């Protein structure tokens, strides 16, 4: 036992264990999201969905899909810019995975509670845009290039309202540390249910607008319906992913679903009170509460995907620049004034 603990004390060994844990949790949760999406979409569209794989309920379908993708040949087009083409999926996946450094699952279960927490998350997730542009350009395919351009324009446009929505939360919480933001909604909350000391999450005390903006921008950042013009099948084959196959396509695919997880986790922490639920001890139940709230948001994302039509490119741009950004600026102003007054 002491030997095992001594090994754990080694910085590098502990780092490898942490990394493995993050990757496995991420992979497992992404597969779960893929399965949930298959099933929920099927039931919302009045069909059954995966049924036979694995014997019952088609539970093995995501594994079968993953294996199928991995078996395929890893193609690099002749004309493609090979190093950039090969690097693009890694950049995209890395920027999504790096966000999990600051996602708090309980007061202690967090890779690193950075002082600049949420700012770090926004910074590393903005690198993902680079991966998309690299993929679109290096494929030497006009559909890929158009998809990459659309994606870049969209990600630039929606990064701004997302940052501004987060800024309002940071003003209200008075900190950028993720643990600090959760605590501002829990133990040390300014607003409580009258007569008790139970804190209210930010979405219920003034940040409902910011929450709406954040979730809209998150859908756009993930290029999911109704914001999936970059990979609009009927216009662009598969956008910037057209030329990708095998393991590299899987990496992009995984980046999308891990991205759903990370965006939902950020929204949970910022607006829904993270691990905090009145009456439950956060050190024990924290991760489960957190996962429950994240699953709820992921369900909403899938629900939106099934029920909304795709926006047009110009509608998407004018929605971001003419509505979301002014509204989020006004939201920051109101939050700041109320913060000083209250």
């Amino acid at each position: 036992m002491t030997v095992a603990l001594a090994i754990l004390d080694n910085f590098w060994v502990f780092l490898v264990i942490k990394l493995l844990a993050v990757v496995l949790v991420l992979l497992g949760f992404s597969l779960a999201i893929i399965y949930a999406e298959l099933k929920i979409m099927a039931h919302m569209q009045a069909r059954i969905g995966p049924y036979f794989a694995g014997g019952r309920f088609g539970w093995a379908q995501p594994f079968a899909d993953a294996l199928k993708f991995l078996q395929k040949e890893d193609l690099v087009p002749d004309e493609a810019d090979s190093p950039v083409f090969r690097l693009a999926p890694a950049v995209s996946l890395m920027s999504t995975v790096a966000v999990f450094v600051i996602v708090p699952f309980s007061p202690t279960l967090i890779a690193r509670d950075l002082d600049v927490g949420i700012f770090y998350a926004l910074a590393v997730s903005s690198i993902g845009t680079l991966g998309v542009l690299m993929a679109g350009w290096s494929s030497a395919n006009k559909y890929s290039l158009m998809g990459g351009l659309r994606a870049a324009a969209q990600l630039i446009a929606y990064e701004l309202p997302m940052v501004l929505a987060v800024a309002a939360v940071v003003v209200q919480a008075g900190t950028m540390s993720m643990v600090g933001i959760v605590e501002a909604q829990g133990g040390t909350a300014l607003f409580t249910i009258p007569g008790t000391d139970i804190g209210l999450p930010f979405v219920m005390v003034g940040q409902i607008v910011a929450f709406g903006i954040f979730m809209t921008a998150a859908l756009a950042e993930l290029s999911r319906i109704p914001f999936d013009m970059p990979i609009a099948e009927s216009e662009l084959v598969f956008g910037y992913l057209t030329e990708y196959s095998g393991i590299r396509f899987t990496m992009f695919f995984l980046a999308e679903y891990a991205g759903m997880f990370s965006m939902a986790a950020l929204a949970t922490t910022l607006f829904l009170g993270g691990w905090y639920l009145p009456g439950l001890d956060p050190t024990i139940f924290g991760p489960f509460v957190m996962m429950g709230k994240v699953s709820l948001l992921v369900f909403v994302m899938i629900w939106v995907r099934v029920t909304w039509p795709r926006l047009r490119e110009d509608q998407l741009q004018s929605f971001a620049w003419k509505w979301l950004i002014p509204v989020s600026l006004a939201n920051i102003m109101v939050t700041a004034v109320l913060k000083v007054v209250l």
Partner: protein
Amino acid sequence: MAFSDWITDARNIVFLVIALTMVGGALVVVTTRNVVHSALTLVVVLGGSAALFLMLGAEFVAWAVILVYVGAVVVLFLFGIMITRAPIGRDSVRLDHERRWPPALIALSVFVVMAWSTTLAFGSEQISGGVIRTDAIGDLLFSRYVIPFEAVSFVLLAALIGGIVLARKDPDR
């Protein structure tokens, strides 16, 4: 300090790796034949500068470099290049210029002047009392440095309006 002493410090090795990567990347930025490769290598250089800020403990500045320069400026560069021309392989337009030596000389002399003057001014003295915590930076920006801060934001606003004026079509013509 002797070089053998200097190199045994792990921090100096990390610094050396980052600095050499940045110098190499910067050379590729100006010598490569493909304008997209040039922009992508610029990302490596900017990432290196963010890493240097991280080494100095200035987390906020480091991630601001990533968010602003990598996430926005270089992405806009790439967007601009790709929407006008997207050369694969060797660029058809020459990126080089016949008079490349005068600017190289100017760049080198700027480097020499800055390196020489900072070494002369500070030597190996350790500067203490830096502001590291993000809330402290915020407090300082909005108390002691509020006028420069507002001046900078005013300049940026002017640049923004200038951009709009240049880009919009005149409805009368």
